[in-house]
């Protein structure tokens, strides 16, 4: 569903000694909204949905009291499993695979690179968690996978703007270290 964005090709988009920004391969993405007893959904999804905002498990991050983002290689079985329990456990499952892309941001100064656009305290995001936040005017989901490795989900049309900032930032941070 999510082939290359016309403007970018997966791979390295910006790099310097400070940080590297690349485009992740396409993947399936689902926005899940539900409330109340989640056990039926947990069963259908084959996972326990995290319930604290920012908390993650293998493929899901909790974004709000009734909101999750799911990443999966193949969304078809998930959509089918959830549809099967809809009558008894109403929820909203919406395919947003085509809506956004994921930028991989890594390198010794990756966290600092994010401070160019994010007002949130990057240090306060534990490894293995994530946050929905704003980066240079665009809503993003920021996943922290290691102290110096992040993923950023951003809607297509905002991606060139953010990439431009990160290109500038990669150069600026590298020059600063030199």
């Amino acid at each position: 569903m999510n082939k290359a964005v016309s403007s970018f090709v997966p791979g390295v988009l910006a790099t310097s000694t400070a940080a590297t920004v690349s485009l992740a391969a396409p993947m399936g993405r689902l926005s899940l909204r539900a409330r109340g007893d989640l056990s039926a959904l947990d069963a259908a999804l084959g996972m326990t949905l995290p319930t604290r905002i920012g908390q993650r498990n293998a493929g899901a991050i909790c974004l709000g009291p009734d909101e999750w983002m799911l990443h999966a290689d193949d969304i078809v079985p998930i959509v089918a499993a959830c549809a099967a329990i809809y009558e008894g456990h109403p929820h909203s499952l919406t395919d947003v695979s085509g809506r956004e892309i994921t930028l991989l941001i890594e390198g010794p100064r990756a966290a600092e690179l994010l401070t160019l656009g994010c007002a949130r305290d990057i240090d306060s995001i534990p490894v293995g968690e994530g946050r929905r936040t704003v980066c240079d005017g665009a809503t993003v989901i920021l996943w922290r996978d290691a102290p110096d490795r992040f993923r950023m989900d951003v809607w297509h049309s905002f991606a060139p703007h953010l990439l431009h900032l990160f290109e500038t930032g990669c150069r600026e941070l590298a020059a600063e270290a030199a």
Partner: protein
Amino acid sequence: MTRVPGKGRVDLSQPVEFTFDGKTFRGGKGDTVASALLANGVHLMGRSFKYHRPRGPVAAGSEEPNALIGTRRGPGRYEPNTRATVQEIWQGLQTNSQNKYPSLKFDIGAVNDAAYMMFSAGFYYKTFMWPKNFWHKVYEPFIRAAAGLGVSPTEEDPDTYASRNLHCDVLIVGAGPAGIAAAKAAAGQRVVLVDENAEAGGTLLSEPQAVIDGVPAWDWLASELAALKAAGVKVMTRTTAIAYYHQNMVGLCERLTDHLPTLPADTPRERLWRVRAKQVILAQGALEKPLVFNGNDRPGVMLAGSAQTYLNRYGVLVGKMPVVVTSHDSAWYAAFDLQKAGAKVQAIVDLRGTVRDDLLAEAKLLGIPVKLSHTVTATSGRLRIRSVRVNPTSPGKVGARVEIACDALLMSGGWTPSLHLFSHTQGKLTWDAGRTTFLPAATPEDCVIVGASAGAWGIEAALRAGAAAFGGTAPTVEHDRTGSGVSQVELPTDLNAGRAKAFVDYQNDVTAKDLRLAVREGMSSIEHVKRYTTNGMATDQGKLSNINGLNIAADALNRRQPEVGLTTFRPPYTPTSFGAFAGYHRGTHFEVTRKTQIDSWAAENGAVFEPVGQWRRAWYFPKTGETMDAAVLRECRSVRAGVGIFDASTLGKIEVVGPDATEFMNRMYTNPWAGLKPGRCRYGLLLGEDGYIRDDGVIGRMSQDRFHVTTTTGGAARVLNMMEDYLQTEWPDLNVWLTSVTEQWSTIALNGPHAAKLLAPLVEGVDLTDEAFPHMSCVECTVAGMPARLFRVSFTGEIGFEVNVPAPMGRALWEVLWKAGQQYGITAYGTETMHVLRAEKGYIIVGQDTDGTVTPHDAGMSWAIGAKKPDFVGKRGMARPDLVAKGRKQLVGLLTEDRSRLEEGAQIVFDPDQPIPMKMVGHVTSSYLSDAVGQPIALALVEGGHDRMGQTVHIPMPDRTIAAKITGAVFVDPENARLKL
């Protein structure tokens, strides 16, 4: 040269050459422009704002009001009004003085000085009141041309600017003794220590005689800074805390390259830091107060503490035979330091009758003449002070003068705590009558103010206060210099005070007599005095003038200072470049430009674009040599006669899902939704609670519990927010959820008689016939092998389809359709053609034909209201008396009698012969050339328009008045026959 060997921190072994007004000067690494010029014996650095009086630096830091210069670094890099006391020199720096013509030493504008009696407080208000119409044409342009400081840059700034966010536990503003001690005591936390100077140290840089913990001050400073950095404290120099916002957000401006001889690659000139600190320590020190006396602005007249800084930090003797005038102990130390460095201090003139014995003894030991109970009443010298007039005083009397020759006059009226950032926090101040100063009291922020900015005096006291902020202990200090003083208003004089040029605000040329005149003329609050005289309103924000201004106004009013008030300090603390505020947001990065997946095709095929909200959209596709009008007419004709293809991806899309989806839609939109079957669409109209149209769009029911809502391009985010707002606050009981899918889908519209023929062979899962898939249907199917949501809708009046495919497939689908459409002469069209085609059908564009005060009835869309529904957003608003009253402006069509195209926004009148000002009864909202109608068409909002069909209205234009006939808003195919296959 007035450089003192062995003094100061300037490295003369690294010489630096720069120019001032074209002449080359030499300084050393570490010099500012001011210190280097002073080292070359140059005091005259500029002309004043109003009187064009010769001026030199009065201070040594960022508070400097006089020594404002232009700096240049090659083409484009020119900055006016830079403080010479802050700008560091570098090899090749070009600087120039300002406000002078033809030269700094001989300036024609200085005639203002001779005519100074004319330019008193309120001068502009009084002089230029009459004749009234002269203000705009004569007075204001003249005043604007004559006044002002420096010259605005005219070239585009080639530098780059940056910004960053920073979170920390403790932000310490000011790296003097108090700030350093606080940073040390706070170690272990995330600490950021900032200082506006090129190097950290504050007072310590000017007081090398102090011995801290047995170590000379500068050695102590170096080891402390090294230890702080080793402990992980982020020490930032050349970084000014410009503003203190709510909840401990502090703005910092870091200057990265203005001191460098060559610009490093990829390095911004300045960086704005947005710091969110758990706790803020303000340790900004104190500013010395000038004394107010006749001729206190002559080059060579300088604050005593600044002279001490020039000597001890920069190794520059500002005068070989200075006189000191003071009412505070601190200036005595300046006299001692200068005397020891080789100057011959001509006299210490102290306003006070008694002075500490140790100071008198030291003066005697050094052989400095002392004049207690003396005043200064005048100075002489044209471009540099030559002598000072000194008189003895006794209560109520001023005795006979003596004239003392000198080459510098060092003054001190005491010290004022720097409360600027504290004031930004809305912090409360208390008046300390003993010290004649405001001191900080409570602030709503988690903020502690320490050291001299809280009234602590001396290095040891500052260290103690800084350390105490985090429960630390402070080292002991030997050779500390503490002291006290007596505050003054204008110094007593035997001369006519009404003719004294005793400056309070150097930068705005405000004198003491201006302030007293303001009080005599009825200004009783300092806020009024300030605005009447402009005292404290220059770019230095009254750093030197506010407290003297207050003391003089209070004296004139015979009231205590707190009753007269203190003016509010506002950000930024010091002048800040626009570049720093803009940061990365300039040029192509000025604002997000959102592009669709099909944008690249449009660009490759010659589209002209227009911005719509954050999006850029293809406006029209001109062929070589084609005008916009010709291109749009061709595109319109092609759609009505063949088939057109249009990128509608920017339309907002919201997926509404849940068992209560229908109920939610019923409450949000005016239309009824319960009867809409899955697989069908309906036009939806969204109102605000006031009953006015907010948004619209076609909404498809994809299944029982799932709606595909479309919104206007510009309204997408707003509509989703409005819906979420209602859902979360009014109807949390509804089981329904909203997801933005604007960017999930690329949306391609095909319109025209051949649209179905083109599309049908590519569609799997539905037959494109009127029976299987009538107008206003929707279905999930496959188009060209891509998963799609297909809508049969029309915004043109022709047979129309909108194909939604996952966004990244958009361009691929477009190209398939483009190829398949060649046999039908497919034409790509842009937003302008879309606008024309919809206007021909009378379809409104929200925000163009509506302006936030148009009801569905006004727009002729009463049919869209579900009259039987118990409620929906805006239902009660629509029933308000003035929304149902007669004579509202209503949407109608207009056809001009002379077949000319009206101007959008043009005003409409009923009677063109009425006297001006005419009664305006509406305006043109949309106007286009129309191929289908055969003459230009327009939509307009006209008073009572629905009842005026066939009447003539008039549109007065600058050159003529155009008559137009009111018609219905539907110009083409009112029976909708063309929608059928």
